């Protein structure tokens, strides 16, 4: 469960009290009244307090310029042109999963004569677990933020007359469906039953909260081109951003990758020639590894002109890139 509590005042005695996020009942410790939080359509709305000031956000971005494979002269040539705070809406759901997953696991045993015996191990796993889920409740555009990373900090019930916010555009029903699907998927994965014969899971949405989270947007220029970054206004961490790459790093990666990939491929082909029993498999593996190195080097070269960090839609993850490599490897296997 998230470590968020919300500050409020007792309507009866005015005493300051706090309530855990997601709960809607709290006793007043001063006058003993039982208090109930009535949310809009059952949804509570809270906002994290903006803790980082403008200078902190600019400082965090300037530190971020020095990290990674960004242009070496970025700290010198980069100029912050605009810095402003924005509150992003997120759905935060707490769910409980109760149920059972039954099935079996198959283990293969090979004896000294090469006979394979399959052992079937029946399994039954009980699930009784709480899960937390969050997703952004608006179109984040080009901000590169899609889920809540931080769940600790001071919060209060939201009053948005004076602060700029992104308007929530997704429905609470969709958020609940996503939270339930996420909880069921995580519960199923945690059971570790490879072959499922019986599954009965009940997912209870315990609470749904709309959380407004403050973010600093920092826009800056570098050689007349505009870039941006976002800074968590609670923790001070850079959440996402775009920055110029460095042509030197790009050419070094391409050259180094080509050399390394070629050496690995050539080395294994030569070694394969000396080994008569391997049927050329060693050479094929070596060529495959060489292609992977070359591909990763090309990928760095291709996308190295701009360094992107955060949850941007068009950005390919390393996992996706490796899946692309696996696709190429399968094609090679087919050719063989």
């Amino acid at each position, binding site marked *: 469960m998230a470590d968020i509590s919300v500050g*409020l*005042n*007792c*309507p*009866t005695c005015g005493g300051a009290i706090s309530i855990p996020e997601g*709960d*809607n*009942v*709290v*006793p007043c410790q001063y006058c*003993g*009244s*039982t*208090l*109930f*939080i*009535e*949310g*809009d359509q*059952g949804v*509570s*709305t809270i906002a994290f307090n903006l803790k980082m000031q403008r200078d902190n956000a600019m400082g965090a971005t300037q530190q971020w310029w020095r990290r990674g494979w960004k242009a070496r002269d970025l700290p010198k040539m980069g100029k912050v042109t605009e810095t402003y705070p924005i509150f992003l809406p997120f759905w935060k759901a707490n769910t*409980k999963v*109760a*149920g*059972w997953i*039954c*099935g*079996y696991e198959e283990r293969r045993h090979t004896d000294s004569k090469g006979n394979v015996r399959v052992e079937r191990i*029946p*399994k*039954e796993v*009980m699930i*009784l677990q709480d899960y937390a889920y969050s997703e952004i409740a608006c179109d984040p555009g080009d901000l590169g933020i899609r889920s809540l990373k931080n769940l600790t900090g001071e919060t209060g*019930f*939201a009053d948005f007359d004076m602060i700029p916010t992104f308007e929530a555009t997704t429905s609470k029903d969709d958020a609940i469906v996503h939270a339930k699907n996420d909880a069921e998927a995580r519960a199923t994965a945690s059971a570790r039953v490879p072959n499922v*014969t*019986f599954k*009965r899971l*009940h997912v*209870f949405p315990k609470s749904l909260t709309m959380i407004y989270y403050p973010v600093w947007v920092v826009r800056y220029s570098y050689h007349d081109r505009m870039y941006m970054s976002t800074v968590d206004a609670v923790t001070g961490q850079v959440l996402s951003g775009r920055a110029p790459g460095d042509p030197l790093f790009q050419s070094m990666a391409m050259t180094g990758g080509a050399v390394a990939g070629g050496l690995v491929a050539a080395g294994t082909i030569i070694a394969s020639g000396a080994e008569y029993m391997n049927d050329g498999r060693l050479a094929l593996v070596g060529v495959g590894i060489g292609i992977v190195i070359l591909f990763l080097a090309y990928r760095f070269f291709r996308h190295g002109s701009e360094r992107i960090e955060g949850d941007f839609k068009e950005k390919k993850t390393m996992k996706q890139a490796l899946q692309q490599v696996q696709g190429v490897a399968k094609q090679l296997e087919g050719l063989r």
Partner: protein
Amino acid sequence: MKVIQVKCPQCNSPIQSKVRDHLFYCTQCNTMHTRNGGIEKLDYEIGEFNQSAQGERLYMPFWRVYATLVVHSKDVEGGSLFKLTQWIKGASNTGNMFIYIPATELDNAGFRALSGRFTSNPPKYSTRLNFGNVNRLPATISKQEAANLADFVVVTMEAEQPGVLQRLNYTLTVNDTKLVFLPFVKGPQGMMPAL
């Protein structure tokens, strides 16, 4: 969104409490109500303590779910089949049963132990009209959740028998759900029923 003081829907008295309880009990008129998706007055039973019970007395809330269970087929590997019909009153594969769901926050082991114990061996007790200054444990599980947890308890009781459950094809229909407060005493070994 607003914060309100909870008042009794029957007599309008403010509800006083020292714990975070989702069941609101009015000490003036003995009305119990909840506010999950609207105000709902609840019918409830309070069990009488066994007079010989020693230790700190308290009441634990349970949802007693009256349900009809129909077992179509089942498959257990590596052990004897547990007969669900042991809890079912009447026919072998079809019958009515009371399923007890602890409504308070318990750890997983405590939840399984109490729900299994009272469902397989329903408690017998005489009732009383009020709590008589005995503390109640706060409720965190709603009536709607209890209906789903009843299904979970049925499968749990089957799975906890010898052998490994592989399939269970059944239908559980909830007919009624009632709130009952069962007497417990807190001793050196934890909470024990005091029926």
